[in-house]
């Protein structure tokens, strides 16, 4: 099974060059059952990555391009009056929106209005949507990979903290290394390549892997470490607010998934440290003054691993 993970990573590496760490993180995020937020400048390969992930996992996916005039119905679906063929009568039929898919690519989520954003974010948390009084289950698995532009770009509606909290991880890709960039320039159309990736993980394997993540052992020493981190963000660091219990759970889940991706059956502090920036930075970006990237570095430098 871990072979499948390795193969998937290898496939992804052919599409997104020189970003092994981020690819592992995003895969771990999905294995932990969490939603992923990719934040970067336009043209850094966000969409390519999400396409590649969908392809590797072999999931049925939809893509929504978020714009400022996008309406909730465009995401969730709408009921339309239809005539019965061969009859004068007709009835309302619900047309499922793009949200009814196993993997939803929400491109540039912060370009939509808060109303549309929250329509999606509700679905992310509940894994069901309620339209016109009727509650409909979303497919299983249900992943959301959202991309967004940095909030200081024009034409964006920043996601509030409560909604950022719903994303297990936020990663950013960053500029590629010169070598990777050169390879990119020399190579063929990578986005095209992403659309023709081979499925590496079957749905059965995926659900088994998700199960497996839950069984990864986190010893009391690791839990102590996580609790010290949480405590540090709440009491000692001087942030406006600390990590919520959901944040604590997210950190543990992510660390477990990271351990699995690294083919270990137990969590070690390095796992926690590896996922910490992706899990914590977007949750505490507003709480700390120094800006997003410094939060996890600050925590890592100040929390003892052993007591």
């Amino acid at each position, binding site marked *: 099974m871990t072979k499948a993970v390795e193969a998937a990573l290898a496939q992804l590496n052919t599409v997104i060059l020189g970003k092994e760490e981020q690819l592992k993180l995003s895969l771990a995020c999905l294995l932990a059952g969490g939603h992923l937020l990719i934040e970067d400048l336009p043209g850094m390969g966000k969409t390519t990555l999400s396409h590649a992930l969908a392809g590797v996992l072999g999931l049925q996916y939809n893509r929504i391009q978020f714009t400022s005039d996008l309406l909730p119905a465009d995401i969730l679906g709408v009921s339309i009056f239809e005539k019965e063929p061969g009859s004068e009568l007709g009835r309302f039929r619900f047309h499922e929106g793009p949200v009814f898919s196993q993997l939803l690519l929400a491109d540039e989520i912060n370009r939509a209005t808060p109303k549309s954003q929250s329509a999606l974010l509700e679905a992310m948390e509940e894994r069901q949507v309620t339209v016109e009084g009727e509650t409909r289950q979303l497919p299983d698995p249900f992943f959301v990979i959202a991309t967004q532009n940095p909030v200081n770009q024009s034409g964006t509606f920043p996601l509030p903290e409560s909604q950022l909290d719903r994303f297990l991880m936020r990663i950013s890709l960053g500029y590629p290394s010169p070598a990777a960039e050169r390879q990119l320039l020399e190579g063929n159309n990578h986005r095209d390549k992403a659309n023709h990736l081979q499925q590496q993980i079957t749905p059965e394997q995926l659900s088994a892997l998700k199960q497996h993540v839950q069984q990864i*052992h986190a*010893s009391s*020493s*690791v839990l102590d470490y996580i609790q010290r981190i949480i405590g540090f963000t709440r009491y000692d660091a001087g942030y406006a607010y600390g990590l919520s219990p959901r944040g604590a759970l997210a950190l543990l889940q992510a660390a477990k998934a990271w351990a699995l991706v690294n083919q270990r*059956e*137990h*969590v*070690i*502090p*390095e796992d926690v*440290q590896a996922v910490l920036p992706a899990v914590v930075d977007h949750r505490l970006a507003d709480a700390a003054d120094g800006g997003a990237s410094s939060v996890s570095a600050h925590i*890592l*430098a*100040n*929390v*003892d*691993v*052993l*007591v």
Partner: protein
Amino acid sequence: MKAIERPLPRSALLWLLAAGVLVFMPHHSHLPWFFWGMALITTGWRWLMHRGQLPYPNAKTKMAAVVLVGGAVVAGFSGHYSLESAVGFFVAMSLLKTLEMRTQRDGYIVVFLCFFLLATGFLFEQELLWGLLGIVATWVLIGTLVALQLGQQGTGAAKQLGFAVVSRFATGILLISLPLMLVVYLLFPRFGPLWSIKLQSEQAMTGLSDSMSPGDIASLSQSDELAFRATFESGQQPPRNQLYWRALVLDQYDGRSWQRSGSRRNVTWYPEMPEYQVEQLRRAGVEGVTRYEIIQEPTGQNWLFTLRDGGSMEPGIGLTSSGVLVDRRPVFQRKRYRGYGIDGQYARHQLGYVQRRLNLQLPDDGNPRTRAWAQQLWQQNPTADVFVQALLDHFAASFTYTLKPPVLGDDDIDEFLFDTQRGFCAHFAGAFVYAARLVGIPARVVTGYQGGEWNNAENYLTVRQYDAHGWAEIWLDGVGWVRVDPTAAVAPSRIELGLEQALAGEGSFMENSLIKPGQIRSMPWLNQLRLKLESVNYLWHRWVLSYDGERQKSILRSIFNRTDYLYFIWWIIGAVIAVFVVIAALMLAKGPARSRSAERRGWDTLLADCEKAGIAVAASESPLSVLQRLQRQYSSARPALLQLATLMEQRLYAAPSQADAVSSKAVLAAIKQARRALKRAQKLARK
């Protein structure tokens, strides 16, 4: 941080109200009745507020309540300024404060008010039961503080604290503070009162008064209040007919009542008091020196109690020229003192001219029948001792001892001697002294207490107000002052058995009280219980309430052979500082208080090695990454480091089944090997 007014935790309110009621109780006896109503109203009102059935009072209501209650207090004490009225005002305002409390801060204020009220309560009530109530109240107050404090810790919705949690906490705190309390109680310097506070108005105190007219002592016999308790050096009960506790010598008669003359101001104060007298007697082999110790209830007067020809050896106590003990100050607090009395007969000094004149003083006229009769009797019995015997015989022949004597007119001695012939001790003593003085025998009335109840368990004597008595003393040349008790001639059982037995036929003893002592005594078990309670109460008085500077000194002397409390204060302060210094030193030496396992300590030694070698390791670095770093730096030590990393990872982080397979010993051994390997590698690197 901004100060936030935290609301009063709901779970603390019940504790607060209970504490308020408990603290109020010791004050009940000296406060006007309406305080009960006020306590009931404020507590009930606050409770209804808590239930949400009444709103919080607004500023106008509060103002009105303060004015109303202030007025009521002033009216209740009829404008007098005394300790009671001051405490009363304080109680009233504290009760009102409970109405107002709304925030946590208010709660703290009320708790501290309650502590103060509790302390003031002991000004008025000091019995054992009140002491126990004080402990309970302290416990409840500590519980209140706990509830106030813990009630805040839950965020958001008020966390309801169970009774069990709070009470366990409070009990713990109380128990921890108990040893300190005992030490402070035993060693804290006992100053004498810096000033005497008039605790209660004199009228309120039951007891002898400084004059005696017929019927005065009879009113005392209706009270079973404690007058004093006495123990004797011998531990034995002296014969009852020796137990004449002299308090006042009344040597001036104005035709109506007996009073003290100016001779009472002629006082010899200790240490000038003739203690040598006793020592002389001892050496001369005179029998019957009775040494006693008294714990006296407050009387508001300065007289003390002494046995015949007695004295005392205590500072602040003096002996008047008429032979009774007085204190320098009125006794407003329970007083403990030692004294002695002499039972044996011996030749005494002469009666001076002034004293003789004083003790023969009579009004010029009145009681004509008595005057004639006394002269006639003197002619028949021309010596003092025979005359006295004849008088006593006369009393014994036809007089009745009663608590309900008829009312007497102007010539009261005439009427008593010839018409009614019914009287209480005051009648007999007064008539006797009057008659003796008429024929030229110096005589005086003495009032005090006679007898008392002996407690066999603890060997002490309880003297109550109904033991009050009046008798006579006459001067016999060559003998001295001799006690004559005319009552004994009429009703010998009064002296031998006590007032209750003497009046058994009349049924007038304590007739106004609901439960008469006789009824209790007729039920053996109840009487046993009563005596047991009395014993406990006595011990409480003896060892706790009358623990004063003297007693403290004697205890310190017997334990440490020192008496200066300053020495002990420095000692205690030193000990406290020493304890804190030791604790602080331990904490500093240990660093942050953490219990560290052997493996952890072993790992620390390895880190210390690294530090020596100039490799900085932050606490925020995971041990595995440290080991990886070392492996890169010292490739020769790699196998040992790898081994250690594997073991540590397994031990610290793997699933229990795997982690348990690695013993602590194995990890320690691996650490040792790794350290050795590192040292070797470092040596290599240096070369």
